[in-house]
């Protein structure tokens, strides 16, 4: 069946690709499907058989699936590197998923530098966290269920990054949301966890609705959802796409804005970030994998993937950058005053995600992805370290009740310190290279306000990271004295991932040297479009700028040290908190955003729904229906008095009727 002419034009495009595949005979792209398949198989085994398998087997299946997947990813990665840069684009179409009328979407995979980086991050960090979970979840009764969910998550995440079209990306997009839901609510018996899970899913759905609209717009504009075809056409239709369409904005602006709504939801940006802090109700490995390293970065991945569209929409890019910068500083301020170890890291994650959006928003897509990649390492490390602490302290999460842990848990403390420094952006740790690059790109692109916001955020980052580390590991132990004697480092299954990640947090940044020109960037260059202005690099400023941001972050750490370690400044935080009481309370309560949503969205909607049900459905519609029935009843009550039950009356009325009727027939007409 032929589906419109536009199909034909793209046909040529895909023929080219297929030819290439055929020429190579056996080729690596035929193996792409293996990457997500192993986690899926692991999921199926563990969800159906897990309850009957021994724990050892469960963990072997799950970790094995991830390990093999990681291995295949590495193989694909090296295969890709061996290809010439312009050939680094492998597609594999498994089957036609949906095809009806003019719509067609395939289940197909795309391996290019961007997705290669992503699958490495997902499978690599994922594998380490799987291993870590063996120890962390060792005593949980739902061991198998946990690993099944983790594997399912990995499957969907790999689907998300490997998809060759927007619809399949959306499948992964919602799929990781589902797994996030399941894993946040893993300890579903805790009402807080159950609520957090629901909140996460529903808030994400708000974003997803926007994302869907973006999909629809892409399809009505391009007639396809496949990346290659969309981007290819986007070049050709440049003028049409950027011409003002609705509301003074161009089509492509609307598309990219709609997609960005999805990114806001998934990557926890203002104003839809509220689910992420609550998501900390899930087990810590989940926070590390989903809510730090992989899923939440899907939004950045998606924007970067759509860079050919975003570069056509400067307005959207500006929105992205502003949302990112505001989120970065907003979340950083909250992180400074939180006391829950995981929540501090969660707000830090939100803040770092803001930086990534700032990066892609100023057109430095590669820098955004670079930060995504380094962040995956050090933020996973921080979460896992926090997990080790929580594990050791018997589920104590309040940093005010910690302190002085370093002597007892040296591995954890040192690796955590590495992670904190990387997060704060201290030379030469991974975070330094990527974050500095983003700030430089912002400055270089002439977005001075954004740059300043980012710089201020960097100061706060240094401060809260220092606060977190010092309160947790330095000073004296302030927690439950009963646990004081048995605080110890984690078992090797937890320790080794920490060490590996710590090493990564140090070296991961080196692939990005020199800034914006490193191997990492060159690898990604064929995929990512560059946002014009940012590329006219004034490299003379690079080093001074780097020093400046380093100084700012260092200052943050210094203040943290003075506040929380130095004996003479011991009381300063309290004094400041007291002096700025109003501000402190607002920030401590997270700017009352949750309360705002509760009072102005959830509450009213609930009341409205109840009113509609009771007030409209039951009262008005049913009232009308029952009213008619009652009216009938009353009428028939009157009419039934005619029924005397005496046969004579009936006969007489028949007789009268017949006479009248006949009379009408005879004389009436």
């Amino acid at each position, binding site marked *: 069946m032929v589906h419109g002419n536009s199909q034909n034009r793209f046909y040529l495009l895909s023929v080219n690709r297929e030819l290439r595949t055929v020429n190579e005979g056996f080729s690596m792209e035929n193996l792409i499907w293996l990457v997500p398949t192993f986690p899926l198989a692991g999921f199926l085994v563990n969800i159906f058989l897990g309850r009957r398998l021994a724990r050892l087997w469960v963990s072997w299946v799950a970790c094995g699936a991830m390990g093999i997947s990681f291995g295949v990813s590495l193989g694909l990665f090296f295969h890709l590197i061996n290809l010439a840069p312009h050939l680094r684009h492998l597609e594999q179409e498994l089957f036609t998923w949906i095809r*009806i009328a003019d*719509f067609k979407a395939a289940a197909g995979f795309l391996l290019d530098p961007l997705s290669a980086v992503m699958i490495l991050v997902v499978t690599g960090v994922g594998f380490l966290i799987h291993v870590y979970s063996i120890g962390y979840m060792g005593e949980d009764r739902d061991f198998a269920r946990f690993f099944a969910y983790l594997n399912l998550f990995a499957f969907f995440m790999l689907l998300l990054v490997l998809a060759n079209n927007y619809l399949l990306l959306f499948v992964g997009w919602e799929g990781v949301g589902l797994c996030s839901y399941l894993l946040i609510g893993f300890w579903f018996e805790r009402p807080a966890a159950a609520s957090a899970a629901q909140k996460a899913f529903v808030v994400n759905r708000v974003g997803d609705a926007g994302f869907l609209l973006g999909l629809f717009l892409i399809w009505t504009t391009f007639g396809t959802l496949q990346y290659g075809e969309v981007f290819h056409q986007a070049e050709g239709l440049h003028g049409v796409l950027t011409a003002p369409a609705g509301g003074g904005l161009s089509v492509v602006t609307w598309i990219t804005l709609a997609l960005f709504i999805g990114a806001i939801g998934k990557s926890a940006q203002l104003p839809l970030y509220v689910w992420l802090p609550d998501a900390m109700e899930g087990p810590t490995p989940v926070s590390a994998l989903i809510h730090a390293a992989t899923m939440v970065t899907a939004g950045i991945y998606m924007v970067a993937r759509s860079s050919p569209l975003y570069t056509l929409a400067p307005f959207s890019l500006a929105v992205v950058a502003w949302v990112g910068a505001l989120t970065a500083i907003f979340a950083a301020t909250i992180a400074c005053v939180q006391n829950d170890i995981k929540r501090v890291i969660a707000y830090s994650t939100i803040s770092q995600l803001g930086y990534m959006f700032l990066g892609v928003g100023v057109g430095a897509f590669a820098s955004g992805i670079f930060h995504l990649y380094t962040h995956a390492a050090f933020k996973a490390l921080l979460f896992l370290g926090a997990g080790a602490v929580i594990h050791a302290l018997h589920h104590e999460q309040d940093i005010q009740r910690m302190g002085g842990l370093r002597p007892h848990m040296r591995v954890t403390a040192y690796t955590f310190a590495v992670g904190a420094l990387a997060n704060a952006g201290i030379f030469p740790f991974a975070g330094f290279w990527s974050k500095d690059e983003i700030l430089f790109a912002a400055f270089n692109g002439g977005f001075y306000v954004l740059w300043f916001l980012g710089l201020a955020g960097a100061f706060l980052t240094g401060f809260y990271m220092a606060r977190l580390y010092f309160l947790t590991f330095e000073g004296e132990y302030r927690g439950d004295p009963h646990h004081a004697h048995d605080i110890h480092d984690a078992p090797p299954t937890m320790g080794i991932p920490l060490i590996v990640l710590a090493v990564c947090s140090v070296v991961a940044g080196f692939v990005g040297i020199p800034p914006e020109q490193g191997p990492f960037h060159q690898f990604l260059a064929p995929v990512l479009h560059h946002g014009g202005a940012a590329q006219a690099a004034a490299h003379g400023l690079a080093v001074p700028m780097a020093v400046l941001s380093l100084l700012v972050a260092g200052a943050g750490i210094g203040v943290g040290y003075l506040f929380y370690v130095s004996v003479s400044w011991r009381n300063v935080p309290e004094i400041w908190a007291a002096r700025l009481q109003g501000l402190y309370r607002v920030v401590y309560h997270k700017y009352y955003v949750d309360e705002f949503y509760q009072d102005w969205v959830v509450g009213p909607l*609930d009341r409205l729904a109840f009113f509609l049900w009771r007030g409209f459905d039951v009262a008005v519609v049913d009232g009308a229906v029952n009213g008619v029935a009652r009216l009938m009843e009353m009428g028939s009550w009157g009419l039934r008095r005619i029924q005397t039950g005496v046969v004579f009356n009936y006969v007489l009325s028949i007789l009268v009727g017949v006479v009248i009727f006949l009379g009408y027939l005879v004389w009436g007409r």
Partner: protein
Amino acid sequence: MPLLSLITFLPVVGTLGLLIIPRRRRNLIFWGALGTSVLTFLVSLRLYTGFELGVGEMQFVEAAAWIPSLGIQYKLGVDGISLFLVLLTTFLTPLTILASSGIKHRMKEYMVAMLLLETGMIGVFLALDLVLFYVFWEGTLIPMYFIIGIWGGPRRIYATMKFVLYTMAGSLLMLVAIIAVAWLHGRAGGGPTFDLTVLMNAEIPPAIQFWLFLAFALAFAIKVPLFPFHTWLPDVHVEAPTAGSVLLAGVLLKMGTYGFLRFALPLFPQATVTFLPWISGLALVGIIYGAWVAMVQPDLKSLVAYSSVSHLGFVVLGIFALNGEGIAGSVLQMVNHGLSTGALFLLVGMIYERRHSRMITDFGGLFRVVPVFAGMFLLVALSSIGLPGLNGFVGEFLILLGTFRVHPVYGIVAVTGIIWAAWYMLAMIRRVLFGPVIHQENAGLSDLNWTERIVLIPIIILIVWIGVYPTPFLRRMEASVERVIVQVERRQSVHSSGFTVQGKRAMNAETSSMNHKPSIMNPSPAHGSEFVVHGRGAIHGLSMNPELSTLNREARRQR
């Protein structure tokens, strides 16, 4: 072999068999009924395998004179639209019968009613004669009346009365309209006939179409049910026994949407376009209203009932998008809703049998107590909220896509439906499955037994299948969907302002699709004038597939 008649009346034959079994032999009655329905399902699979792809016309057609003097025929036929609804019916009936093995009271009558209901439902989807359709349509009321009225909950009498009266109120007007259509056709010199395929070509003046469409639409809207005619649904669902709820939600409601698609649209194309904004508007209100009200329902069944209002709002919206994506999505979504909501009602029924309560507040923490139940419940709920990879998504996505394509604003409003769906469904999941076990009664609940698992597993397999690989379904319905669209479009042009205008419009459509897919955002100035027409007239989507429609038209001419 008259396959369609066989499928339709096999349950009746089974009923006759049941009647001679003494009522003491409960097992025999049960297995007899189950065997009959399974046999019906197996026979109906022949429809699937023997269905000719790419044919939009009716297949397996059987026709015989019934009341020749009035032109009433016994005429059955199946196309890509009714095919899956028939299969859905024959698929769900055995499962509901299997799920009813616990019926204690008057099992024989119950099984007879179920089988008669099956015949009625299949007949509705297969009938090609308006009178025959009406007979089956009303015929389903009778067994349903008894199923709810005898085996229902405490307020069953109120519920049955409401159900029957609501439905009758609509369908009587439809009867009048049916007679009017045939009469108009006869008066125009066409001879007496109630044959749908003939009447589709009858030219009815738009002013009369207006009223006839209204009469048909009222009957269908009540059945769907479209806001604000939906208030019977929660009451009936709450009182109906499990099997009644499953078939009601799974199949009976689809009779309404199917009616729109099979009768209202092809018979009254102009009126369809006239009423399009109104019906789409009601569907939109229904989507959001149903979801909001579902949020505050204390009773599991009424929650699912209101969710049906929301879901069927989607289906109606897709139908009235009047393009391939929307209508195909709607047909698929009818099946999806039958599966997901049917499974939800089955699950609620299963937990009700154990706990004797459907109040959400009586539950909590079931995930720990009954993990298999909980897992299936979760999966089905996720399918119901349209999670990609499960069936609900494909249908919902296509509907939204089709709607957005012609009416972006409707699309934007409807898309929020997925947020509310997640909201109420997950809140329900949280309160029922998650959290600690609050009520001691729940601690000792037993998990699903094998019978119950056998009931649910086929549904779940289909849920995943349609979600992952819907192609076999979409392929079979495609040509028929096109045919409906072509029919509406063609009649549209006959009646609109003359041939020249039509020719120009068709040319417009052709050129536009040659350049590139028409965009609602109207990217190229050359198509500037087109947007207005499309946006308002809903003809836009109709001319989307010029090749196919031309082919169809030529095929018709040759015939």
